[in-house]
């Protein structure tokens, strides 16, 4: 009797709940957990309560690679979401999938949403636009590598924390002093390929791949086995041998060592800021990524990492209208400024940057504007606009393997990079073949 009435109540309430959701649902698949996931949910919540026509449902689908894979699998099964978060590495894959995506500029035009592609930061936007300047996906979270300094560790090793580390040449000496002063982990890094090859190349205006790093054509070839990259990796391999650079893994494992206070220096994404600020029990500051003084024209500008939002094809025009509204909501400067300040990711619009500046955030949190200055300091060249390479996730994987060969002393920097270029080019040719 009791069970029956409970069931009846349940069925009735379910029916009621169903009725109240007359709003059009927009599915958004993303790759964020933890604090970032909460902040994303907050944005969705804000959007949903700001209007009643659409209801955005955000779903976590695993890490970046897994999210892209679920999007692809869903498309094959004709159950794709409206919005898919894709990391910058998957950009070329998405761009080549012409029938699977609906370009953002088209969605915005059809949806009559407020959209001015010039409002976005050039360095961020450039990554996701066609050569004609049409925006294909909406930049969501973008960061760039910087170097974090554990000031207490410097002092403990008897090194002045304000000593100059703006160039790799000066850093070389500093690492030696830190080691002599007893530091067990003078330097650690996250995302080795992204920081020490991809950004290194852009920062010194050297090609990572031919044809403007793949922006100009599909028949691009890798070129990161040239003099500058090999010189840099040679130096790092020497540091690894001397115990001045400690290798911890392919992703951001090193962040844990740094936040625990074990390491004196760390090269990491500017988005690592939130974590370091929350956990570090020591004085730290953020400095621009070092560059080689001997290289001509350095520093150029660094490039981004992060993700953008792709609109998938095959949905109703009414739903695309909702997507357009969501995307313009996400680009408003209030949302962007808050995101930038909470996470350490770059603001994607100029307005959000100005707003953050006006609020005095950079004065209260020194170092948080370094990433944006470093990225926008110079007009990007063909070598520093970004990377657009097919199968790039796989190519990064094989670069990681070859770098590990260097750190363990199995290979010289030149051998490892020659092999990475050769193996990577094979993958690029296959990608070209699949997308002809």
């Amino acid at each position, binding site marked *: 009797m009791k069970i029956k009435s409970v069931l009846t109540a349940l069925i009735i309430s379910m029916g009621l709940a169903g009725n109240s959701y007359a709003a059009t649902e927009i599915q958004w698949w993303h790759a964020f957990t933890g604090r970032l996931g909460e902040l994303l949910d907050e944005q969705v919540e804000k959007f949903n309560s700001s209007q009643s026509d659409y209801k955005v449902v955000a779903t976590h689908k695993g890490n970046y690679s897994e999210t892209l*894979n679920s999007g*692809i699998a869903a498309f094959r099964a004709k159950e794709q979401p409206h919005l898919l978060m894709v990391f910058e590495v998957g950009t070329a894959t998405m761009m080549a999938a012409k029938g699977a995506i609906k370009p953002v500029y088209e969605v915005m035009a059809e949806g009559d949403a407020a959209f001015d592609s010039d409002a976005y930061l050039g360095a961020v936007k450039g990554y996701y636009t066609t050569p004609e300047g049409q925006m294909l996906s909406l930049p969501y979270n973008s960061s760039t590598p910087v170097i974090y300094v554990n000031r207490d560790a410097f002092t403990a090793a008897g090194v002045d924390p304000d000593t100059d580390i703006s160039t790799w040449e000066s850093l070389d000496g500093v690492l030696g002093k830190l080691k002599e002063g007893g530091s067990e982990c003078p330097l650690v890094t996250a995302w080795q390929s992204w920081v020490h090859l991809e950004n290194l190349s852009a920062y010194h205006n050297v090609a990572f791949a031919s044809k403007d790093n793949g922006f100009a054509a599909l028949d691009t070839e890798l070129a990161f086995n040239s003099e500058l990259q090999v010189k840099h990796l040679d130096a790092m391999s020497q540091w690894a041998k001397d115990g001045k650079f400690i290798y*911890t893994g392919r992703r951001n494992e090193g962040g844990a060592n740094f936040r625990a206070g074990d390491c004196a220096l760390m090269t990491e994404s500017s988005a690592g800021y939130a974590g370091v600020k929350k956990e570090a029990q020591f004085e730290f500051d953020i400095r621009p990524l070092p560059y080689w003084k001997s290289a001509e024209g350095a520093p150029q500008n660094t490039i981004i990492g992060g993700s953008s939002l792709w609109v998938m094809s095959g949905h109703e025009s009414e739903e695309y209208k909702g997507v357009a509204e969501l995307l313009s909501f996400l680009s408003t400067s209030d949302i962007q400024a808050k995101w930038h300040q909470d996470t350490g990711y770059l603001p994607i619009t100029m307005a959000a940057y100005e707003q953050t500046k006006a609020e005095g955030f950079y004065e209260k949190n020194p170092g948080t504007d370094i990433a944006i200055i470093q990225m926008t300091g110079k007009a990007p060249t063909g070598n520093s606009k970004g990377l657009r390479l097919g199968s790039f996730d796989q190519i990064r994987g094989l670069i990681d393997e070859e770098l*590990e060969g260097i750190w363990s002393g199995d290979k010289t920097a030149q051998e490892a990079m020659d092999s990475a270029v050769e193996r990577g080019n094979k993958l690029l040719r296959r990608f070209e073949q699949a997308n002809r």
Partner: protein
Amino acid sequence: MEKRVTFKGWLLPLLLITPQVVVTAVFFFWPAGQAIYQSAFIPDPFGLKSQFVGWGNFQFIFTDPYYLASFKTTAIFSLSVTIVSMGVALWLALMADRIIKGAATYRTLLIWPYAVAPAIAGVLWLFMFNPRIGVVSWYLDKIGYDWNHVLNSNEAMLLVVLASAWSRISYNFLFFLAGLQSIPKSLVEAAAMDGAGFWYRFRTIVFPLLSPTTFFLLVVNIVYAFFETFGVIHTITAGGPQQATNIMVYKVYSDGFVGQDLGSSAAQSVVLLFVVGLLTILQFRYIEKKVHY
């Protein structure tokens, strides 16, 4: 003489084997056929278009030194997992068979790890051996050994073998124990009375009589090492460092579903199909002849 049951007519026998045929067709022939078909194409990830390349995918994988190296990696890995897990299980079963007091408790405890999923087993071992926070690596550090499976290929291989073998020991233990208990006690006792020691009895009576079990486990374990260890590899090393633990089945996954290169992945699974088929034929033709049933 062999006894044969004969049916009158065709209908009933057909009906009786239909379920088996359907299951095999749906879960084996159809996917295998798909894999063979797809291995001749390079499709784009979204399935929008694909290019016919004939043997191109096979040419691509067989000129990749890392793919060729994965054969060796797979052989070393599978053999090590099989030997370690079967060796330890046999030893434990022999010991458990001799225990009189509390035998049930020992057996139950030994069977437990089998309930742990491979991925969880991987994470457990990863935590113990984590170069930074692992208990085992901390003790190794105390005695002056710097454990770092993130960079050291041999250590990485050792770790995935241990983790894979560990969760398999229970399964093997169960079968060995059952096998041991089915050996007539009178045989062993007679040998003991003739003055044969424990190891002599094991070598001449127990092990030969155990051979059907051993053979069955050998086949099952090699298949396990080939396929089901995926979770362990995925959680501990993801095939690294420098592909030192990239076994064939993991490479099929990582090239196909991480790298989105479905053509190469399909070609690799066809190769895998042949390797496993060949292995099974070899086992049944040559090793089975030495087995006493």
